[in-house]
């Protein structure tokens, strides 16, 4: 599947990673990489371990995108720990085998509801992972049985708790990859300790930003574990790009405090003072961590913005909502990656975003395909918006640049980077290279340490503490 974007030069910010994965001539889209050895031409069996493939969420969407692209050349499966409904909520990837380990469907003849082990707390799945309550002694054993018998070339975990399972329970054979969809910094101290302790037995960790990859490299001691940043992917939208003519600003995300929509509304009051013909739509609803809707509603009223700012509720998909706008805005204090920024850019909508950790600066090139403004600065947010509002030609040009540069996040191109990593690790394993040696060392070393003054766990904890104060 050759797309325009697949042959264009990589974006400067991604040049590093893109060059490694797409080092070829670009003549034939995905598989003419000169840097990759012949092993990569062999299809791999890749098995993903996902919390719940039947729900909705960024990790599920990303995993579906990635596996859909990988399945064009490889034997790919998604193993969902839980299944609570018959069909996945999001469109499942074609050609990917989907199976589950624990069945939560009341009407299923094989359901596991009421299984005594479900009432016993999990011991393998780490307590520090926010999903711990949903895991149990039953998931401990089911995941263990699955991983021990797995004969794949690569096994990929999609959240810290599952990465720990993979590190502890995978049999000999599969290359072990742990994906980090959030960031090391945003995890609890308890989870960071667990990660530092367990991830030593992974072959690779992938983060969604270079910033987070640096954190993993510098704050944890994970000898021999390859740490690569591979950003999230966003498919080419099915709607035509925005035309920059409408006088609407669009924001989308959960209505939670981390998104700082309060700052956005306050900033938009300044926009309206200068340009009362522009309006703002905010899409999204609250989630388990909070719902700011009433507070935002009150702020809109207090600022007299009820004719200019609308809380739209949720929309799925978002693409047709982005294209109703001419500018997108992100005011978050933290973004693990910034999927919404990429989504808007892929729709040809330029984004004004706070330069918050970790993703925005790796997605937006300030002044070229969007605007980066300081975190928490109402005047700067309003200023960034007005720069694009006041200059129709700049807005149009920035939108076009966003459309072009965001093609580097196409699932086909992102999948190539994961694929190159997996192929490399598999090849090394076959050649009896780094991985076996490192794991051997660690396992031997662990035996020694356990008998000595310090356990690996204590050393790992010390490493985390050290990293924290560094």
């Amino acid at each position, binding site marked *: 599947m050759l797309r325009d974007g697949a042959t264009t030069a990589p974006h400067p910010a991604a040049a590093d990673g893109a060059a490694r994965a797409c080092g070829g001539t670009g003549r034939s889209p995905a598989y003419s990489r000169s840097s990759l050895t012949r092993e990569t031409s062999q299809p791999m069996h890749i098995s993903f371990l996902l919390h719940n493939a039947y729900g909705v969420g960024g990790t599920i969407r990303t995993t579906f995108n990635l596996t859909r692209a990988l399945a064009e050349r490889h034997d790919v499966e998604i193993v969902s720990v839980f299944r609570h409904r018959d069909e996945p909520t999001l469109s499942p990837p074609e050609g990917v085998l989907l199976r589950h380990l624990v069945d939560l469907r009341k009407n299923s003849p094989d359901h596991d509801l009421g299984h005594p082990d479900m009432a016993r707390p999990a011991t393998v799945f780490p307590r520090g992972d926010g999903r711990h309550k949903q895991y149990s002694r039953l998931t401990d054993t089911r995941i263990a049985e699955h991983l021990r018998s797995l004969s794949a070339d690569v096994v990929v975990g999609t959240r810290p708790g599952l990465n720990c399972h993979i590190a502890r329970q995978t049999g000999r054979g599969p290359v072990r990859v742990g994906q980090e969809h959030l960031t090391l910094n945003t995890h609890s101290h308890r989870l960071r300790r667990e990660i530092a302790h367990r991830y030593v037995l992974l072959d690779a960790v992938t983060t969604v930003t270079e910033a987070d990859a640096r954190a993993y490299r510098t704050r944890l001691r994970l000898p021999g574990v390859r740490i690569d940043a591979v950003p999230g992917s966003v498919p080419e939208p099915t709607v035509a790009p925005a035309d920059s003519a409408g006088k609407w600003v669009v924001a989308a995300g959960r209505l939670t405090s981390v998104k700082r929509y309060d700052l956005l509304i306050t900033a938009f009051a300044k926009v309206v003072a200068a340009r009362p013909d522009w309006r703002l739509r905010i899409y999204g609803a609250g989630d388990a961590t909070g719902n700011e809707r009433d507070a935002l509603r009150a702020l809109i009223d207090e600022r007299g913005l009820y*004719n200019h700012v609308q809380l739209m509720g949720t929309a799925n998909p978002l693409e047709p909502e982005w294209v109703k706008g001419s500018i997108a805005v992100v005011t978050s204090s933290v973004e693990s990656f910034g999927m919404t920024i990429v989504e808007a850019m892929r729709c040809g909508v330029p984004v004004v975003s706070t330069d918050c950790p970790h993703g925005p600066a790796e997605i937006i090139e300030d002044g070229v395909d969007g605007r980066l403004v300081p975190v928490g600065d109402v005047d700067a947010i309003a200023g960034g918006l007005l720069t694009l509002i006041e200059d129709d030609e700049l807005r149009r040009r920035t939108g076009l640049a966003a459309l072009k540069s965001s093609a580097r996040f196409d699932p086909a191109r992102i999948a190539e980077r994961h694929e190159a990593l997996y192929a490399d690790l598999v090849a090394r394993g076959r050649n009896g290279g780094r991985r076996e040696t490192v794991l051997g060392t660690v396992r031997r070393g662990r035996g020694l340490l356990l008998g000595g003054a310090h356990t690996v766990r204590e050393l790992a904890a010390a490493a985390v503490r050290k990293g924290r104060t560094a």
Partner: protein
Amino acid sequence: MSAVVGHCTADAAGTVTFELAGAREAAGTELVLRRRGGTTPADEVRLPLTGPRAVLDRATPLAEGRWDIVHVAEAGDHDAQPVRPGTRDVRALVDRVPGAGPVTVRVPYPTADGRLALRCWVRAPHAEAGAIDLADGAMTLRGVLYGAEAGDGAGVEARRNASRDAGSGTAVAPRTHRVPLTGGADGAFSFTLPYEELAEPAMTARQLWDLWLLPGHGADPVRLSRILDDVWDRKSIHVYPAYRADGWLAAPCYSADNNLHVRLDPRD
């Protein structure tokens, strides 16, 4: 559950193009639109499918209301399958300025239970509500009148229907209150409605007042509503702060049908 997903594109003139996906095993021959609660032949419109595509032309009349959209696998088949909402490209409806003739609005939307439907309005004439300014216990609304001209004696009536007070059980008499309309160029109008004129002492239950524009002496009243964009139900989207008086609260609000009201509530 049907696996058929309906993507659609709406243009500003009222044409809606549907494109079905995931209908591999049941390619389908027709897309059928049925007006909810409709009983006459005009309440069903059958669109032939050419490949995955069906077109509802702007010239095909559809009465005002909510139209369910179903997919028929074989001609004459009565086991129609619902269509799940896909990508709805309705950007052409945002900030719409209608052409001459009756104001016709067709917004494809997802129902609460996950089906694709079409919200239609047909108004001739039509009074579109726009920005509302709130100050000093009154609402001032700016709007545009299509298909009629406001003349001498034009005004806006707030009407309260007869009902029974849910709190006290006593009958609430119908009432009407009229304020003058200020006309402008190209159908633009505005009016100011002080809430105090609608409020009554000792209110015990919510009262909803409808708003009608009266273009002139003898002319038919025109319901004030807001329908010239992509929002098929603005009840919880266009929300306005309440004015707090002694004993009551008042605010403009929209119904799920996008009609404009004034809401009065007793204040504890």
